[in-house]
């Protein structure tokens, strides 16, 4: 995990922190896979955003990539504060049931997760060798986060956990962008943030529509409709 070689001359302690945060990110991704409560899932998502923001901020300061600070601010504002708050509100207002109900059983999901992590590290290896950034070794973790969030999306039956999985995937992609290239150009990051914000807004409206029609947020209810 610890990066060596070209970055060896840079004082290593802040890299240790970044690597620690990256490990934390992976841990949170696994915790999200295991989480059975919606409320727990939302707070894990907020923590994931926080870990992402802190690690990006450290990289920004120590490598003097000041434009990354905008992305830190966006992450803090959107993914740590606004979106989790909005989700909590939705859960309370819509009175959603608090259990997540995964499709696969627990241990099988976890095992699949481990396989995905190994796959992600293999996939990232040739690319991270090419990257010139100090935190290139975390690229594997970023890819693993993307794949784990994807796994979470497809093994959940309810609307909100699926969306949280989707947002966590976006976190993973941003972490990958920071690890490989110190983030995307600013206009693109702003545009993506705008899309996320609009997406969450659309989703809010949409949840109320689903609620009015189905009286539950369980997507299996939609499936059942077909059988009638």
């Amino acid at each position: 995990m610890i990066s060596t070689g070209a970055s060896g001359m840079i004082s290593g302690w802040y890299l240790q922190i970044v690597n620690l945060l990256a490990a934390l990110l992976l841990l949170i991704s696994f915790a999200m896979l295991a989480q059975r409560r919606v409320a727990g899932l939302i707070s894990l998502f907020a923590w994931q955003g926080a870990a992402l923001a802190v690690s990006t901020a450290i990289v920004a300061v120590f490598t003097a990539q000041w434009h990354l600070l905008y992305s830190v601010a966006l992450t803090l504002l959107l993914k740590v504060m606004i979106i989790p708050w909005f989700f909590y509100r939705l859960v309370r207002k819509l009175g959603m049931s608090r259990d997540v109900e995964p499709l696969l059983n627990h241990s099988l999901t976890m095992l699949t997760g481990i396989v995905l992590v190994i796959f992600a590290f293999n996939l990232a290896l040739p690319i991270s060798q090419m990257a010139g950034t100090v935190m290139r070794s975390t690229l594997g973790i970023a890819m693993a986060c993307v794949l784990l969030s994807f796994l979470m999306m497809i093994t959940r039956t309810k609307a909100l956990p699926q969306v949280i999985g989707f947002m966590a995937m976006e976190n993973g992609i941003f972490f990958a962008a920071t690890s490989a290239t110190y983030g995307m150009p600013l206009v693109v990051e702003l545009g993506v943030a705008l899309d996320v914000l609009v997406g969450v807004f659309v989703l809010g409206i949409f949840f109320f529509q689903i609620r009015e029609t189905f009286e539950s947020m369980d997507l299996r209810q939609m499936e059942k409709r077909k059988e009638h």
Partner: protein
Amino acid sequence: MLLYGLLGVPLVGALLLLVWGHRRLAAEMNVLFSFITLLFAVALAVRVMRAGPMEFDGGWFFMDAFNVFLVGLTALVGFTTALFSRPYMRIECAHGRLTMVRLRLYHASYQVFIAAMLLALTTNNMGILWVSMEGATLATVLLVSLYRTPAALEAAWKYFILCGVGIAQALFGTVLLYFAAEKVLGAGGNALLWTHLNAVKAHLEPTVLQLAFVFLLVGYGTKVGLVPLHSWLPDAHAEGPTPISAVLSGLLLNVALYAILRNKVLVDGALGTQLAGHLMMGFGLLSVVVASFLIRQQSDVKRMFAYSSIEHMGMMTFAFGMGGAVAVFAGLLHMTVHALTKSAIFFTVGHATQKAGTQLMSGIRGLMGINPGLGWGLMLGTMSILGVPPFGVFTSEFLIVTTAMHEHGWATPFLLVALGVAFAAIFGQVQAMVFAETSLPRLPHQPAMTPVFLHLVLVLVLGIAMPDWLAVWYRQAAHLLGA
């Protein structure tokens, strides 16, 4: 200036309609804004045709033969669909399926959707291309669920989540593209500008671009509706209001394919191999075959034509994958004629379902008897989309199939069988809908037949006597795509 007009008019229209969209003249305003957008698009096209490729605003926007023709097509179909949606939505309101408040949302989102697609086509920045593709999706999610029926909500949810996941893959692909570009062009906004990337494409790291293209193809391919990523498409087309089915099928799928093609040019340059082309041929052929067999099983008319869209998008993807001057020319022509024909079909199908009060094909009978215009529109549109000569679809499909015979003989039987199956399935159904006996009631408002016949005449002209300037234009675009 023209470009700002093109992008600004629909945005201003969206804002105004957000305030005004439920009043009496909202539908007319929607038509007016779409018409002004079309005027700007035509003016821009004339300018680009005269002066050649040009950059705007310090390289942020870029126009060449390839995207300016899609801009023109998007603005044209956007305008005719607005024309169609005026009586269509009025009838929906009269039938009590919609309230005025929802019409406001509909009109505003329609303009945002057009603006997002035009931005995706004109931007030079591959990141902004991604942002506007996602924007176009978000603008239409609430339109798919406009009727608030359980089926519509399910369709919208599928559309939101599946396209969301797909587009996230494309974002990852874009990150990888930036990663490769940054090494050559340096960090910052310029490294994602397509013109800059195109200039240095031979120096981009091949391994990274290879991986990037897989993600980009899967991501944008979800929006194109390529099998096996297509499952959102029939639902979204069947459950949303028909004008939205027409623009999704005719325009959004094209814009997503455009995004893939822009990336393919870069990847081809970097790899120097046929990998991207082969991937596209595989996905394309699979889509053609699977979709044409699924067409047979449909009982809902809008779903049937949605599967037909998957088939045709597969056909184009296959053509672009083959590469070479003729195949790319045919692919571009097919993009045009498919957009025009399929939206015309959705216009007639929309009115036919309103008349019958159902989307089930068994309930729609004898259109020719009660409304000859509608009957002829559907019959001619169907013949056109099935590739009956002399319509333009025949020309493009003929070119694609003959090129496949020359260069990839193994693929030809698959294509021919698929085309035959689709022909038999669709023609059989449509014949009964048009000619059988019926006792369906009249519609409360006059159906909009002008856009239908306008589109069909254009497709006919493209099939019989394509104007020289257009052929030159397609050839230029094909050249830009590396043919």
